[in-house]
């Protein structure tokens, strides 16, 4: 492009880019307003964690009280239980739920009948599209004492199992349902990674006398290692989080031992008992630990020569 004299004169002005690109900035305006109001607006609300917040006084008139709310949170007996449960549920979820999609993807990759593969995948994706309310409702239809599973069990002369009505059984059911809901969808990323593997690697492995199992161990798994590490980092970051909806849809009054997690406690304190400051402090504690976990595992992954996340 040739630069005309008029352009050069404009170029001296520092804001020529505004004149050229004003349309782009105009487009940005609306989404940025939404981000500022609804995301950054919520950050302002975090100040409540350091205040003695009274909803009638509002954000600004309520008095600062330093870390008092945090002291109250950590001293609460409910907190200890919620903290333990959050780590327990998410930790077990990670141990059981993380390998499941990898195994499933490896199995799917061995299938050569196209239509079988397509139908299986479609069915496996289904739970991902359903809400936790529906999954919870169906779980109770199936696993309650009068549900179909216990009918089959008692028809065979065995005793009914309280899948969702007793603490330890509930924990196991919660984990199994979680694995079931996520494993199919989780295969997508791994299958994509597997498709990208150079076929020559397999040819070389066959020449070396590797059978199918050995090909999986020595070719497929090492090739998708970066994907596995990335997803592991993301999942480690969630060990302090956990879905409120999932616990809330599956819990019942009979089994409160393990259902009391941090998100549920925040809900009980904040929404149900109007202890906004304490609930916000707990939420802030949770998200800061979560952020540190992501950054920490990302750092470690990079130390070990992996790609990392950020």
């Amino acid at each position, binding site marked *: 492009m040739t630069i005309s004299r008029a352009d050069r004169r404009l170029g001296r002005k520092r804001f020529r880019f505004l004149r050229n690109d004003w349309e782009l900035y105009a487009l940005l305006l609306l989404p940025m307003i939404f981000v500022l109001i609804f995301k950054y607006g919520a950050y302002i*609300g975090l100040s409540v964690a350091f205040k003695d917040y009274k909803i009638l006084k509002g954000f600004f008139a309520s008095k600062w009280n330093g870390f008092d709310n945090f002291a109250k949170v950590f001293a609460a007996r409910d907190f200890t239980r919620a903290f333990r449960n959050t780590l327990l549920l998410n930790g077990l979820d990670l141990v059981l739920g993380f390998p499941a999609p990898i195994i499933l993807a490896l199995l799917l990759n061995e299938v050569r009948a196209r239509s079988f593969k397509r139908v299986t995948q479609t069915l496996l994706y289904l739970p991902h*599209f359903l*809400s936790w309310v529906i999954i919870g409702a169906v779980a*109770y*239809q199936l696993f309650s004492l*009068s549900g179909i599973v216990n009918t089959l069990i008692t028809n065979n002369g065995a005793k009914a199992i309280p899948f969702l009505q007793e603490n330890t059984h509930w924990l196991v059911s919660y984990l199994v349902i979680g694995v079931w809901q996520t494993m199919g969808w989780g295969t997508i990323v791994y299958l994509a990674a597997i498709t990208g593997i150079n076929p020559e690697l397999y040819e070389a492995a066959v020449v070396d006398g590797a059978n199918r199992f050995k090909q999986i161990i020595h070719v497929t798994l090492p090739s998708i290692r970066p994907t596995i590490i990335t997803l592991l980092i993301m999942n480690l970051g969630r060990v302090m989080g956990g879905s409120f909806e999932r616990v809330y849809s599956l819990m019942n009054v009979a089994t409160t031992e393990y259902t009391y997690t941090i998100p549920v406690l925040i809900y009980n304190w904040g929404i149900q008992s109007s202890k906004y400051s304490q609930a916000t402090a707990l939420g802030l504690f949770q998200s800061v630990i979560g952020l540190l976990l992501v950054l920490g595992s990302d750092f470690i992954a990079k130390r070990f020569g992996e790609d990392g996340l950020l």
Partner: protein
Amino acid sequence: MVAANKSVPRKKPHIRKKPGAIIADALIYAVLAAVSLTCVMPFVHVLAKSLSSEAYVIARKVFLWPMGWTFSAYQKVFYDHSITRSMGVSIFVTVLFTLLGLVLTVCAAYPLSRTRLRGRRVFTFMILITLYFSGGMIPDYLLTNSLGMLESLTSLILPLAFSAYNFLIMKTSLQSSFPDSLEEAARIEGAGYFRILWSFVLPLSKPILMTIALFLAVGRWNAYQDALFFIKQRADLRPMQLKLYYLIVAATESFQASETVVAVRTNPEVLKAACVMFATVPILCIYPFIQRYFVQGVMIGAVKG
């Protein structure tokens, strides 16, 4: 994606013929078939229950096929004004939320996908922070309260309409499908950015727009946490999932029309089953057709997530 497609028709050089390999194959197919059946059987059972007459359900004789066919449970669900109304609320909220979300995502992703836009990094960074750190449940609640949006459907439409994740997918997709060079050409022709967006970018991005629309719609349709927090008094504004939660999971509410409209009493278990199916069927019907768009979105999101 292109590179991935190229390697699809490869033949993996397996050692065949050995009996061990055949057994392994049979095992793999059996495991996969069993696992994928667990994903549909529960719904087949609930469907069967919802279509059965109550005597069979009470006697626990219904497994995967309805016994004593009847639609009376569905009749009651349809006559229950509060359930159909919740369905209406869900549809209304989902449509508006999806449209708004699409507009916001495009308006943010298009400018920020242009590499020479000044301040691009700052804006992108501002948006991406929200992906890793959010205010949390209570600050969100307090914000909704101070904006006067509690007990109103705006609380379900506005706050979550713009999501950093969708933005990232759209931006990544635009950067690869609509490079700066193509835009330069259009600029030289004298087209403004609005014009370029409308006549080039949007028509070229139909698949990714579809993906994002579906992410928004399915996400909104399925979520109930915000509705549980924000809509407590106005029972008439409850979306379907929240209604379902009160009716079935918490069981704190009873079916309105169960005694009045249809004279025969229906077992609550049958009614619950019918209600679950009523809420599930819309998703069941469309998901085989929409899953490929989802898969696409997940792949783009995985590139840099």
